[in-house]
């Protein structure tokens, strides 16, 4: 349930960007959600809708898109997908909070190195905002 904190972060950023861009009304916000963090989309959506009414964003449509997480080994170059990992619930939970903890528990599936880059699917970010100026 720190989905709430993430939703709050998104909403606050939307308000700040809208102000910076001089938008009178925000219409659509595209949010990308990295798979690595295993956000509970339903809770996240619920939090967004609650926050919408609190912050005068009733008319905004939030479009969510999940991005598949992929890793690339810095040692051997091998690429693999998060969905091919079989991690315990505890470990998934840890990565849920701090995605970097992946380096504690995951290893390159080819050479066993912890030295990999998360090339996609990390974090939650705002892809675009549109509205009326």
């Amino acid at each position, binding site marked *: 349930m720190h989905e709430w*904190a*993430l939703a*709050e972060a998104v909403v606050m950023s939307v308000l700040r960007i809208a102000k910076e861009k001089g938008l009178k009304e925000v219409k659509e916000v595209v949010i990308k959600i990295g798979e690595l963090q295993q956000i509970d989309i339903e809770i996240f959506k619920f939090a967004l809708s609650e926050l919408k009414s609190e912050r005068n964003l009733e008319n905004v449509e939030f479009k969510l898109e999940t991005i598949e997480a992929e890793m690339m080994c810095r040692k051997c170059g091998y690429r693999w997908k998060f969905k091919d990992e079989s991690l315990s619930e505890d470990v998934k939970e*840890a990565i849920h909070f701090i995605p970097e*903890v992946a380096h*504690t528990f995951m290893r390159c599936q080819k050479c066993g190195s912890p030295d990999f880059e998360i090339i996609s699917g990390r974090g939650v*970010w*705002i892809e675009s905002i549109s509205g009326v100026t």
Partner: protein
Amino acid sequence: MDPRITAINEHVKNIRNVIAVVSGKGGVGKSIISTIMALQLSRMGYKVGLLDTDFTSPATHIILNAEELTPKEEKGVIPPEIHGLKYMTITYYTKNNPTPLRGIDISNALIELLSITRWGELDYLIIDAPPGISDIILDLLRINWRIKFVIVVTPSKLAMETVKKLIKLLEEQSGEIIGVIVNMIMGIETNEYKKLNKKVLVEIPFQQDLENKIGDVESLLESIVGRKVKEALNLIIKESS
């Protein structure tokens, strides 16, 4: 657009004082001193948080004997309370496993932690910094908050070399330096640290039996180091009020 930076400002809004215990040099006592600072402030009646940012070689969980805690989730992460402190460390998630992180991961972990942790209202947030003049120091300077720095040094040429550089950097970057804590004084060393031209908050002697007090908060606070850190705090509190 990374929404985390905006979130951080929101989460630290109700923290009156953010103090980072830094050095650049390793092994000078940053973790011991920052932990004792947080504990002493809490004993004085302040609302205190402690954040360990030495993600690859954390120590504060050993000093606090806090290996059994887990944070609660509630619209974010609620830092567990221990010995009166709100305490956050990556070891909640990594346990005692090696955590090899490149700089970019260290930076991301810090931003992530700060953007999900709900400290609530605090008088003081104490940050234990890692050695080196690298990602964490640069991120602490990058975040838009009223952070102040306490510098820890020992009376060694090798520590002095790095601390001089860190002070030069912080001054150039308008980082506010509260003062210097000189740790592990044994008597015969040079007094070169006086040339740093920074307020010396306290001089802490080398205390041979400190090791036995690690993990035992009560005797740590009553030890020479514990009492000396309290002296430094009295100066710091006077300054910040």
